[in-house]
């Protein structure tokens, strides 16, 4: 009997607490839900053909992208704060420093996308300072490796691009493939296939619009 009473008392206390909690949560902070978006086959200066000496050539143009709007930005707006990232082959620009007029910057985080719940306060965002970039270029140094023997570009596993957007907000981004359709090309793929299917970015990202460094899932 005594035990039962104790149990009831316990439940009562718990119930009061729950009510109290829900009350306080309704009130102050506006909750902005963040969602993870998936971008497929974003064209990044694809190869147009081969020159007479057999070298691949392309238009040499960046594709500008807004993480906030999840959309491509026309290149006529390249001098504006409308874009957050620009892609041309393996190079990715942020909208700041020598690359653009806005507040953009980035650093590369080693770890899992889902494990990155908060950008730590002591993180240092780098800005583009051509010829070096916030998202480091070169095999094994930034987001990818290039295999000289197989001519394949492979995004490094466990690398998250932490982005400060043009408007100074934050996003995290994981590149999943550099090839059309998000596939991993086999080593045995033909040279033509390796050339024509590359420079298609597949990635997922989470954009936090409230300006905080916290990504809630």
């Amino acid at each position, binding site marked *: 009997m005594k035990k039962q009473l104790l149990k009831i008392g316990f439940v009562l206390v718990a119930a009061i607490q729950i009510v109290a909690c829900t009350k306080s949560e309704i009130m102050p902070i506006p909750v902005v839900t963040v969602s993870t978006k998936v971008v497929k086959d974003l064209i990044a200066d694809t190869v147009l053909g081969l020159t007479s000496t057999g070298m*691949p050539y392309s238009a040499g143009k960046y594709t500008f992208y807004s993480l906030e709007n999840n959309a491509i930005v026309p290149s006529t707006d390249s001098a504006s704060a409308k874009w957050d990232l620009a892609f041309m082959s393996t190079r990715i620009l942020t909208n700041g420093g020598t690359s653009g007029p806005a507040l953009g910057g980035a650093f590369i985080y080693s770890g899992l*996308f889902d494990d990155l719940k908060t950008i730590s306060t002591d993180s240092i965002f780098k800005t583009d300072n051509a010829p070096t970039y916030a998202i480091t*270029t070169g095999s094994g140094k930034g987001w990818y490796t290039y295999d000289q023997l197989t001519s394949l570009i*492979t995004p490094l*596993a466990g690398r998250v691009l932490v982005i400060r957007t043009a408007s100074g907000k934050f996003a995290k981004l994981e590149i999943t493939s550099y090839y059309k359709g998000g596939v991993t090309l086999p080593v045995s793929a033909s040279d033509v296939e390796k050339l024509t299917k590359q420079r298609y970015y597949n990635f*997922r990202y989470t954009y936090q619009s409230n300006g905080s460094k916290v990504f809630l899932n």
Partner: protein
Amino acid sequence: MFKKLLILLFFIIPQCLFSQAQFVKDTLFASGDSVVVSATRSERKLSNSTVPVTLINAQTIQQTGSIRLTDILKEQTGLTMTSGFGAGVQLQGLNPDYTIILINGEPLVGRTAGVLDLNRIALGNIKKIEIVKGPSSSLYGSEAMAGVINIITDATSKIPLEASLRMGTYNTKDIILNNGLRSKSVFYQGFYNYYATDGYSIRPSSNNRITTPINRLTTSQQFKFNINDRTRILLNARLTDETIKSNIAVSNGGVTINSNGNEHNTDANLSATLNYHFTPNLKTSFRSYLTNYISKQDLLTISGAPYNDLLNHLFKRIENQTDWTLRKNLNGIFGMGAVWEGVKSSRYDSDKLRKENTIQYGFTQWEWTPINKLIIIGGIRFDKNASYASAWSPKLSMLYKLNPSHKIRLSIGQGFKAPDFRQLYLDFTNAAAGNYSVFGSAQAQKVIGQLSSLGQIGGLYNNYYLLKALQPESSTGMHLSWEWTPTNKTFISTQLFRNDITNLIEVQQVGTYISGAQIFSYLNIGRAFTQGAELEFKQNINNHLVLSGGYQYLITGDKDQIAQIKAGTVYTRNASNISTRLTMSDYIGLPNVSKHKAQLKINYSNDKGLFANFRIIYRSKWAVNNTNGNQVYDNGDDFAKSYYSLHSSMGKEFNNGIAVQIGADNINNYIDAIHLPNLAGRTYFINLKYQIKYKN
């Protein structure tokens, strides 16, 4: 034509099989206890060897239809053939760089990227092949880290004349002439071999040949003079000369540039040995050896630009070894020697300048038989190198004969592989693929310093500051084996082994050019291990049939990578390309290594000179490429599929000296053009031989 002949013979043979009722060999050991030399550098009965030795005799080589060293090695337990820069041999999971290849105890040189092409070695005059598994640097110095393969020829052949002609698929021809002369005190053996093939293309709708047309000429001349009871002189000369048509495709950023031309390789070996017996208990031998390997590539790219590559490796050695039997149960050997070697290569700063190294070494080994059942051998060798750090190599081994049918062997030894000339002196910029450069560690800092003063260096990595004189790569190996012969018709042997390797020399990026192109050099950084188990058996089913087989289980790993995986800092990708943390259960270990390898053979023979055999070789999958965005080989990477191949051969020797043999290789026609370029599809051969034998 071949097919019809083969079918015909399949019909004939069973009838022969059953018409034979006579006894041939009653036991596996009918020919007596074999003698091996490679394990201890002195003649010892195989049954008294303290380290595991595989012995392949001439009959086995001949009956399997093997004509190049690769053919027979691929059928041995624990050995796997590799492709790329010729056919190399992986021994208990260690790359071809780590096995020394000897002919009559003298090392072959001329490795490309660490691989010595074993197709260079013809088998037509071989008496036997000895394979010692486990570090053997205590006797042989550098390269004998995984083991030793010693090819032994014999001047005292009983055959004055032998000629054979072999024809096979892809217009492959192999012609052998052996002639011998002997008197009471002088022996001569001459060997001539011509091999040619059109090569083959196993990529459909491609004229790109996997194996390109080859012409290869080999000769070997051996003399043995027994001057008196105490003195003997041996002279050996061997020459291999080959021309390989090359059609090389270099891929750069997805663009392929084709080049055509020839590769010409010459391998010459000369040796002279003087053996002298002071007393039956004290003997000494002086050996001198000179070998030169010259490889030239003359290619023209499609646009007409020449591409030439030269490698010239000269190696000279003198050596003395003294064997002293102190007491009946205690004997020792003492040896010392000096090596001078030099390499010229167009991949070094100048192909006019010869890069040189000298080595002085000394070794001793003691064999003690405290009781009849126990043999203990201890040895140590010191190598003093001019161009890199010196090395001590000890080894201790023992054999315990529990009773006549059980033997236990245990050996612990250290092996090393000296940095090769490429790792010290390479000065190579690949204009065909992104202009990256690789500089040997001996001059990387100097060369990069010069480039820097010309303003060509974009950045230096931390690795640049770590560059220093390379240490030899070294390993500690342990082998434990148990041999069981329950009856004289059954033989079973199991072996456990473990190798721990430190100071692995690896290519690392040390900086970049202004253009962003990478600059590499060599550093001692890696740590790895290989371990596994081997099982071998042989069973006489009846007087004619012998079943034999072998299996190897092998696990390997990079110790630094394992530490990282355990720390949770290595990632991989799942099926939808999302990064995940790599766990040890998905870790594969070293690339190009199969977990399982097995072979099974059945041999038939009778006393009428008829033989037939059927062999199956199996190899489980192996990792070939890192494709999932980490630098570690794991289950998400690119694998070559597991496969098996079937081989068969049969033949008959007639009393009049004529012998006929036919055979088929890769009967199941397994093809993997990318990962097994050395494995042609199904091939057939027919071999005709004529022999004159001395009557005695």
